[in-house]
């Protein structure tokens, strides 16, 4: 456990170094969030009755999504890991007395956390000062806020375990590019990064809610502004735990399989 903790610390400290990049990211995400709020405002003006949640809940959803982008953006995968698989450096890591699955997990969580820590506060603070209903609202209640934090952490864990699955799959395909693109766009669509899940037609949504992708950002962001009922919250958090266990198990199993038949590329 101690060694993984130091992997985590190392990576976290490294992630905090990229401050200029973070500033540029903040500006970009801010503009992006602002445009998105204006877009939903236009739809709200046109037909408020067809809106699946309140406008202020939608705005909160968008700002939180931008603030915690680093938690949930599947396209922010660790290039180093893919590179090490492609160029064969992975051999060094396999010699070490550590499980590569756990090591990768520690690294991924650390770098996502570091990015989010640098970026989330400025976005949240500024968004809090934007007049209602376009800014970020206060959480529905203290309980909702606590559940939001819990669900946020679970969501991060689900996202990371999903990415780990892709890293492991790269052992089998060697060239990770196509794998990555296909998975990334699927996740974007099904997790609610393109449009929030409540905006989908009910029939499709009831299926999408069950998929692991809904357990990434969707659950936490909707709990915050209580656009999801109490019973549903219980079920959604249960589902997050379920997918976390399944994805971890699948990842570990595949990893063991890959380690057995691994062919290290020359380099």
């Amino acid at each position, binding site marked *: 456990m101690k060694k993984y903790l130091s992997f985590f610390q190392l990576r976290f400290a490294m992630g905090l170094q990229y401050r200029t990049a973070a500033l540029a990211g903040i500006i970009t995400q801010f503009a992006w969030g602002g445009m998105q709020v204006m*877009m939903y405002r236009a739809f709200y003006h046109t037909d408020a009755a067809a809106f699946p949640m309140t406008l202020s809940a939608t705005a909160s959803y968008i700002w939180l999504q931008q603030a915690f982008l680093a938690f949930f953006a599947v396209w922010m995968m660790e290039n180093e890991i893919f590179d090490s698989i492609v160029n064969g450096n992975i051999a060094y890591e396999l010699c070490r007395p550590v499980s590569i699955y756990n090591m990768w997990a520690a690294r991924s969580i650390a770098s996502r956390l570091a990015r989010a820590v640098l970026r989330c506060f400025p976005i949240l603070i500024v968004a809090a000062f934007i007049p209602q209903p376009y800014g970020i609202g206060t959480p529905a209640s203290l309980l909702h806020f606590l559940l939001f934090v819990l669900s946020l952490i679970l969501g991060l864990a689900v996202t990371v375990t999903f990415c780990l699955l892709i890293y492991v799959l790269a052992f089998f395909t060697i060239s990770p590019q196509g794998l990555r693109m296909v998975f990334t766009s699927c996740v974007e669509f099904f997790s609610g990064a393109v449009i929030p899940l409540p905006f989908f037609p009910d029939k499709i949504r009831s299926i999408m809610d069950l998929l692991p992708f809904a357990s990434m950002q969707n659950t936490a962001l909707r709990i915050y502004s209580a656009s999801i009922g109490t019973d549903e919250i219980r079920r959604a958090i249960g589902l997050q735990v379920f997918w976390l266990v399944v994805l971890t198990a699948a990842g570990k199993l595949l990893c063991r399989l890959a380690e057995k038949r691994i062919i290290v590329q020359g380099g």
Partner: protein
Amino acid sequence: MKTIRLYLHYISINIRCMMQYKTSFLLSAIGQFLVSFNVFLGIFFMFQRFSNVEGFTYSEVLLCFSVVLLEFALAEMVARGFDTFSGMVRSGEFDRILVRPQNEILQVLGSKFELTRIGRILQAVVMFTYGIVKSNVVWSLSKICTLLFMLIGGTVVFTALFFIYAALCFFTLEGLEFMNVFTDGAREFGKYPLGIYGKKMLLFMTFVIPYALIQYYPLLYILDRRTSIFYMLLPLAACWFFVPALLLWKFGVRCYQSSGS
């Protein structure tokens, strides 16, 4: 004439180079296709719920989205070399370009011709066809001209933005991520007619960066919301944007100090 021949030669080299990695090429093209397909699905499902947005129906938004997508895809295919220009400055590759007896813009343009973007172009063309078929526009000669002007103006404006992005690298030595707001952001949010984002935003997009000239106003003409011939010519007027972009580039080249590596 000689310049064009040289440019075509650059492209053929790039294509042959890319064809060495056929699987990778195919997968990237499919990936590109999927990425912009997501945007379309977003629009599609929004309109399952809403019948219109500020008076624009699904088929009208689709036309708007497909035109912007095609404009962007065309500009990107041509001017992609400018997008990765920061790497060229940092590695000192640009020094080599400067000592050659050819126009530097041509060389940068030729340095990278993204054939993988063919996925996006292909999708843009499919969407464009779908958008035109779906739209209930009665096409007249003037409307077809407007559409052509939109494509020309849009490609020029997006290319100009890539130019500016590259020119700024002379001063910062690295790519500025926030410029993505103006290129990728414009593609992303240009899927809806720009009027829906509010008055102030529309003013900004008319007079500062002329997105509205290539998208919103001519669209109003095509959709019979406006009848003045003035709206038809606005996309061509948007080409003025290329002038400051080119000046900035020239200024950048004059100020260029090698990064030393």
